[in-house]
C-alpha cells in the first residue's frame, strides 16, 4: 500500500467519523448551516480525493451524497429519512474503505446504484422546494453562510462546474439594510473567491484548502451576525472584507496548524515508550548502585539524569494520551439509531470529551461505554408516553462526562430516566441465590444496585434486541476491572441512574507493592491493595477457621485468606499452614475483598509493566513482568486472577486446605474451635465450629411446613429446620440466627437465639449429660457450656442417623487414630471420642494415616473407614499388618450398615473388628473394650 493511499484511508476514516457525529447533530438542528457545511466539506473533500486517486465507486457515492446535501443547503426540508439515507451512505463508504484497505488499494467490485438512485431521487424530487417554504423556516443567519463557503470551494476545486443558484436563493433571505460595519454579500463573495484562487488546487494542498475553508466559514459566520449584538463579530467583518488581510490570515492559519501537529505511527510511539522504560530501569539500577556507594562523585550527575528521565517519561506518556472523546465518537450515531428504533426522544450530552487518557486504556473502555449507553437508552429512559405521564420533558437525556481525579479518570454515564427498580433487583437477587431475603432486608439500596453487575443478572422485563439478555453488565465490570478500574452505580427512583467508572490514566507504569513468598519476589499492583495486616498470637486480628477454611476477622468483615505461594503453585506441600504469625495483604477486586498471606513485604515501587512473551500470556495469575532496580525480573501478580481462586476456592484448593488444616489441628493438640451460642436460656452452649457449614439468618416469613415439620427453601432445596430446644424463640417476623450443617447432600438448619463467639478451647468434658441433645458440659474460658450433640439434631431432622451415644465416661482412654475420607464424619466423631476420654488424631486418607503410624506417636487403636478413594480400608489394613512395628495395633473397620459380606473380607485383610458406621454406641463400646484390654495388659 503506498503512502498516499494509507494517508487517504486514515484521513477519510476520520472524516467519516466526524460526519457521523455531525449528521446526527444536523438532524436535530436542521437550520444550523455551520454543521451542514462541515458535513458538506467533508464529503466534498472525500469526493475530490477519491477522484484523484482513481476510486471511482467511492467518488460516485460521495458525489450522490454531496448532491443531496447541496439540496439541503438550498433549503429543501431536512427529513429523518434523508439523513438516514446519508448515514447509510456513510456506512457503505466505510465498508468499501475496509475492503480497500484489505486489498491494498483496489476497490471491491459491486454497484451502489441502489443507494445512488435513492439519493438522486431525494435530491431531484423537491426541486420546487426552493420556491416553496421549507418545513423548518430557513434561518436568515445560517443560510447565507452556506453559500459563500460553497463557492469558495467551487472556486478552488471545480471553478466552473457548479452553477451559483445557491447564492441567488440565499441573497433574498437578507431582507434588511446593511448596518454600519457590515459588508454586503456580494462583497464577501468576491473576497472569498479571490482568496480561494490563491490556494493551489492540487490534491496535495487539499488540507490547506480545508483550513482556508474553515477560516472562510468563521469569517462568513461572524459577518452577518451583528443582529445578535456580538461586538467582536462586528469588528471582525471589515478584516474579512480586506482581501490582503484575509489571505495573510489564511496562510498564517495553514502554517500554524500544519506545523503544530504531525501524524506519528503508533508503533513508533510504542517503541519510544519501550526505550523510555528501559531508561527508567537503567536509572533505577544506577540509583541502586549509588545508594550502596556513599562517596561516589557521580551522585549529582545521576540526580540530574534521574530528573531528566522522569520528565522524558512524562512527556512520552503524554504522547500516548488521547482525548476520551475518541471513544465517544460513535455514540451519537448509536444513540440516534436506538432512538429511532425504540421510538424515544434521546439527547446525548457530552461533557469533558477532551479529558485525556492512555490510548491502551481508551481501547479497553470503548466497548463497555457503548454497552452502558445502549443500556441507558433502552432500559434507563422511559418511552415518551411514560415520560409525559411522569411530568418529564419528552426528550430524555443521557449525559456522558469525564474528568480527572487523582491518578484516575472518572467517567460518568447518567440518564434522567426512571432509575433502577430496587424491588425487582432484590427479588431477582434472591431468586438467583445471590443473597438471602434476610441479607437483602438489611442491605442498603446502594448495595442492592450492585447486584446488576453479577453474572447473568438482568431485570429487563422484556428482552429487546438492544439489551436485556442478562449478559452485559457483568462483562462491563470485568472489562473495567481488567484494566484496574472499578464501576459503581447510584440511582434515584424516577430521577434516573448514574454509572461511575474509575479508570487508571495509564497501564504502562503502575505503582506496585513488592512482596515475597517462598523466597521469590512478586509485584502486587497498588491499586488493588487495601491494607496490610499482621497477625500474631496476641494481636487484635486473628485468623480463624470456618470448616477448615482460614478466614481473617477484620473489623466487621470476615475475609477469606489464602497463602500467595499456594495460589501461585509454589507452596511447599509438606509444610503445614500456620497463620499464628502471618503477614496478610488485603486486596480488593471489584466488590470482593480477600487476603493473601505473604512471607514479607519489602517496599513500593513504580514499576514499568513489560508484557509477557506470547507463550506465557494466558497464565491465570500473572499479568506481566518487570525489572527491579537490582536487575532481577519479577512477576506482576494479577489481582483479578487471585480473586477468582481466592474468592471461590476450587476442588483441589479446598482439599489442600483441608489436609493441611487437619494436620494443623493434630499439631495443636487437643484444642477445638467452638462456636458459642445461646438457645432457650442464658447458659452458654457450644458446637464444634468444624461441624458448622455456614451461619445464616432465618427469616420467619420464609418458614414453611411440610408434614408438620418446619422447613425453608435454602439455595434451591428444602431443608428441615430444628430448634435447639422448646424454649428457643419462635420468631413470628424478623430474623433469627441459624446454623447450617451439611454433609453429602443432607443439609439442615439449627435455630438458636444468639451467636455469641468463636473460641479455641480444650474440649474437656466435665459432665456427661443425660439430656438427649447434649454430649455433656465443658468449661470454656472459665464458663460452663453445654456441648450440643449435633448428631442428635441431624437424627431429629432426618430420622435415621447416628444413634445416641450411651455408656459412661472413662478417663482411661487411649490414643486413637481415626481414618475417614469424610471430613464431616471426622469432625463429628472426633469430639464424641474426645468426650469419651480418648486422644484422637484424625486423618483424611490411608496414606496420611500410614505416615502418622510411621511417626513418633504410638497409637493404641486404629478406627478406619472401609471405602475411601485411593488406598481403601482393606489395603490399609494389609499395609498395617505388614509393618512389624505396628502389626499388633487393633484396627476397627467402619462400614455402611448391612454390608455384611465385607466382614469376612475385612477379617482376611486384618481388621480386628467390624462396626457399622452409624453405630456410635457400638463403636465406643468396642473401643473401650480394646483399650481396656490394652490397659489391662499393661497393668
Amino acid at each position, binding site marked *: 500500500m503506498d503512502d498516499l493511499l494509507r494517508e487517504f484511508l486514515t484521513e477519510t476514516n476520520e472524516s467519516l467519523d466526524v460526519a457521523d457525529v455531525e449528521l446526527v447533530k444536523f438532524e436535530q438542528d436542521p437550520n444550523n448551516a455551520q454543521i451542514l457545511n462541515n458535513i458538506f466539506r467533508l464529503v466534498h473533500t472525500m469526493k475530490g480525493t477519491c477522484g484523484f486517486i482513481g476510486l471511482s465507486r467511492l467518488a460516485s457515492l460521495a458525489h450522490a451524497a454531496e448532491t443531496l446535501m447541496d439540496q439541503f443547503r438550498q433549503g429543501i426540508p431536512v427529513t429523518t429519512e434523508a439523513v438516514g439515507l446519508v448515514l447509510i451512505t456513510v456506512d457503505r463508504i466505510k465498508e468499501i474503505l475496509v475492503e480497500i484497505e484489505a486489498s491494498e488499494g483496489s476497490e471491491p467490485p459491486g454497484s451502489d446504484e441502489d443507494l445512488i438512485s435513492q439519493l438522486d431521487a431525494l435530491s431531484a424530487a423537491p426541486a420546487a422546494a426552493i420556491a416553496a417554504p421549507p418545513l423548518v423556516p430557513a434561518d436568515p443567519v445560517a443560510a447565507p453562510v452556506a453559500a459563500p463557503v460553497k463557492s469558495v470551494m467551487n472556486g478552488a476545486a471545480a471553478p466552473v462546474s457548479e452553477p451559483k443558484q445557491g447564492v441567488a436563493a440565499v441573497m433574498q433571505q437578507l431582507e434588511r439594510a446593511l448596518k454600519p460595519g457590515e459588508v454586503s454579500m456580494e462583497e464577501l463573495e468576491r473576497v472569498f473567491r479571490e482568496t480561494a484562487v490563491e490556494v493551489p488546487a492540487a490534491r496535495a494542498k487539499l488540507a490547506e484548502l480545508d483550513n482556508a475553508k474553515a477560516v472562510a466559514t468563521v469569517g462568513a459566520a461572524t459577518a452577518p451576525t451583528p443582529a445578535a449584538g456580538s461586538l467582536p463579530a462586528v469588528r471582525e467583518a471589515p478584516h474579512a472584507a480586506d482581501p490582503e488581510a484575509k489571505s495573510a490570515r489564511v496562510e498564517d492559519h495553514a502554517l500554524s496548524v500544519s506545523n503544530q501537529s504531525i501524524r506519528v505511527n503508533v508503533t513508533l510511539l510504542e517503541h519510544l515508550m519501550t526505550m523510555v522504560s528501559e531508561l527508567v530501569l537503567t536509572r533505577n539500577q544506577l540509583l541502586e548502585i549509588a545508594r550502596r556507594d556513599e562517596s561516589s562523585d557521580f551522585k549529582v550527575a545521576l540526580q540530574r539524569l534521574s530528573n531528566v528521565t522522569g520528565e522524558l517519561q512524562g512527556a512520552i506518556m503524554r504522547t500516548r494520551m488521547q482525548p476520551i472523546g475518541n471513544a465517544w465518537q460513535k455514540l451519537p450515531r448509536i444513540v440516534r439509531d436506538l432512538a429511532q428504533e425504540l421510538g424515544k426522544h434521546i439527547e446525548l450530552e457530552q461533557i469533558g470529551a477532551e479529558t485525556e487518557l492512555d490510548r491502551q486504556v481508551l481501547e479497553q473502555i470503548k466497548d463497555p461505554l457503548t454497552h452502558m449507553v445502549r443500556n441507558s437508552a433502552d432500559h434507563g429512559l422511559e418511552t415518551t408516553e411514560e415520560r409525559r405521564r411522569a411530568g418529564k420533558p419528552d426528550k430524555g437525556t443521557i449525559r456522558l462526562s469525564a474528568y480527572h481525579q487523582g491518578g484516575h479518570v472518572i467517567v460518568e454515564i447518567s440518564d434522567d430516566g426512571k432509575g433502577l427498580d430496587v424491588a425487582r433487583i432484590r427479588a431477582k437477587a434472591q431468586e438467583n441465590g445471590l443473597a438471602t431475603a434476610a441479607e437483602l432486608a438489611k442491605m442498603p439500596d446502594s448495595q442492592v444496585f450492585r447486584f446488576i453487575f453479577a453474572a447473568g443478572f438482568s431485570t429487563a422485563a422484556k428482552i429487546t434486541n438492544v439489551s436485556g439478555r442478562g449478559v452485559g453488565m457483568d462483562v462491563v465490570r470485568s472489562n473495567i476491572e481488567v484494566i484496574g478500574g472499578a464501576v459503581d452505580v447510584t440511582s434515584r427512583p424516577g430521577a434516573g441512574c448514574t454509572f461511575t467508572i474509575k479508570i487508571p490514566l495509564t497501564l504502562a507504569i503502575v505503582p506496585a507493592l513488592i512482596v515475597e513468598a517462598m523466597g521469590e519476589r512478586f509485584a502486587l499492583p497498588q491499586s488493588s491493595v487495601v491494607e496490610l495486616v499482621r497477625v500474631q498470637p496476641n494481636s487484635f486480628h486473628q485468623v480463624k477457621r470456618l470448616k477448615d477454611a482460614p478466614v481473617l476477622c477484620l473489623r466487621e468483615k470476615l475475609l477469606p485468606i489464602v497463602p500467595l505461594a499456594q495460589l501461585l503453585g509454589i507452596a511447599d506441600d509438606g509444610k503445614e499452614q500456620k497463620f499464628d504469625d502471618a503477614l496478610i495483604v488485603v486486596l480488593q477486586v471489584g466488590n470482593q475483598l480477600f487476603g493473601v498471606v505473604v512471607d514479607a513485604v519489602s517496599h513500593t515501587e513504580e514499576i514499568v509493566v513489560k508484557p509477557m512473551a506470547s507463550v506465557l500470556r494466558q497464565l491465570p495469575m500473572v499479568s506481566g513482568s518487570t525489572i527491579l532496580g537490582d536487575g532481577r*525480573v519479577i512477576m506482576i501478580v494479577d489481582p483479578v486472577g487471585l480473586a477468582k481462586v481466592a474468592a471461590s476456592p476450587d476442588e483441589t484448593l479446598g482439599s489442600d486446605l483441608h489436609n493441611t488444616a487437619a494436620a494443623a489441628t493434630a499439631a495443636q493438640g487437643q484444642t477445638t474451635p467452638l462456636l458459642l451460642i445461646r438457645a432457650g436460656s442464658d447458659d452458654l452452649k457450644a458446637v464444634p465450629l468444624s461441624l458448622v457449614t455456614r451461619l445464616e439468618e432465618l427469616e420467619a416469613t420464609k418458614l414453611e411446613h411440610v408434614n408438620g415439620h418446619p422447613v425453608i427453601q435454602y439455595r434451591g432445596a428444602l431443608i428441615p429446620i430444628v430448634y435447639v430446644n422448646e424454649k428457643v424463640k419462635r420468631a413470628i417476623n424478623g430474623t433469627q440466627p441459624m446454623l447450617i450443617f451439611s454433609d453429602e447432600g443432607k443439609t439442615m438448619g439449627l435455630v438458636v437465639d444468639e451467636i455469641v463467639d468463636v473460641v479455641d478451647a480444650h474440649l474437656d468434658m466435665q459432665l456427661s449429660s443425660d439430656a438427649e441433645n447434649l454430649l455433656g458440659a465443658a468449661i470454656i474460658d472459665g464458663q460452663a457450656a453445654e456441648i450440643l450433640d449435633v448428631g442428635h439434631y441431624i437424627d431429629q431432622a432426618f430420622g435415621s442417623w447416628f444413634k445416641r451415644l450411651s455408656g459412661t465416661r472413662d478417663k482411661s482412654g487411649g490414643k486413637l487414630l481415626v481414618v475417614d475420607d469424610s471430613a464431616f464424619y471426622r469432625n463429628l466423631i472426633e469430639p464424641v471420642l474426645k468426650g469419651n476420654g480418648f486422644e484422637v488424631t484424625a486423618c483424611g486418607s490411608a496414606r496420611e494415616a500410614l505416615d502418622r503410624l510411621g511417626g513418633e506417636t504410638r497409637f493404641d487403636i486404629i478406627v478406619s473407614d472401609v471405602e475411601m478413594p485411593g488406598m481403601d480400608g482393606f489395603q490399609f489394613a494389609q499395609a498395617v499388618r505388614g509393618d512389624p512395628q505396628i502389626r499388633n495395633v487393633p484396627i476397627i473397620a467402619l462400614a455402611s450398615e448391612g454390608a455384611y459380606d465385607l466382614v469376612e473380607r475385612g477379617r482376611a485383610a486384618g481388621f480386628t473388628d467390624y462396626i457399622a458406621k452409624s453405630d456410635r454406641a457400638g463403636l465406643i463400646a468396642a473401643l473401650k473394650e480394646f483399650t481396656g484390654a490394652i490397659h489391662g495388659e499393661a497393668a
Partner: protein
Amino acid sequence: MSQHVVIKQDVSPGGSQFVTVRIGPQLFGLPIEAVQEVFVPDHITHVPLCIPQIEGVLNLRGRIVTMVNMRRLLGLPDGGGASMAVGIEHKGESYGLIIDSMGEVMMLDNASREANPTNLDPQWAGLATGVHRLPSELLLVLDVELALARLTTDRAA
C-alpha cells in the same frame, strides 16, 4: 510449515553454517542466522503456573528473555551442572534456549543433509529438519521456529 522446510532443503545451494550445541547426549546444529547471541543464564525468575518447558525469564541487558529448557522440550531427563543459553528472536520476542554446552561453528554442505530417519522419535522429528553425518557422530538440524511453536501447542494440550 512443512513446505517451508522443503524449501530450505532444496533451494539453497552450497553450504550453510551451523552453531553446534549439545543437549543431553545429542549434538544439534542451529542455523547460524537464527542465533543472536550466546550467554550464561543467570538469575532466572520462575514463572508461576507455566508449562515445565519454560524455565522462567531473565533480564538480559534490559530485555526480558523467556528461557526454554531444551532438555524438557525434547523429553530428556533434567541434567545437573552448568549450562549455556542460545539467544534467538522469534516473532519480535526474545527467547533463550538452555542447552548443555556449546560447540564450534561448522560449515556443512547442504547436499550432504539427509532426511530424518523414519524411526526418529516423532517428538524430535517434528523439530529436526534433517541429519548431517559428521566423522564422529550425527548432527540433527534443529528448526528453531518449530521448536518455539511447540511451546504454544504444548500449552494448548
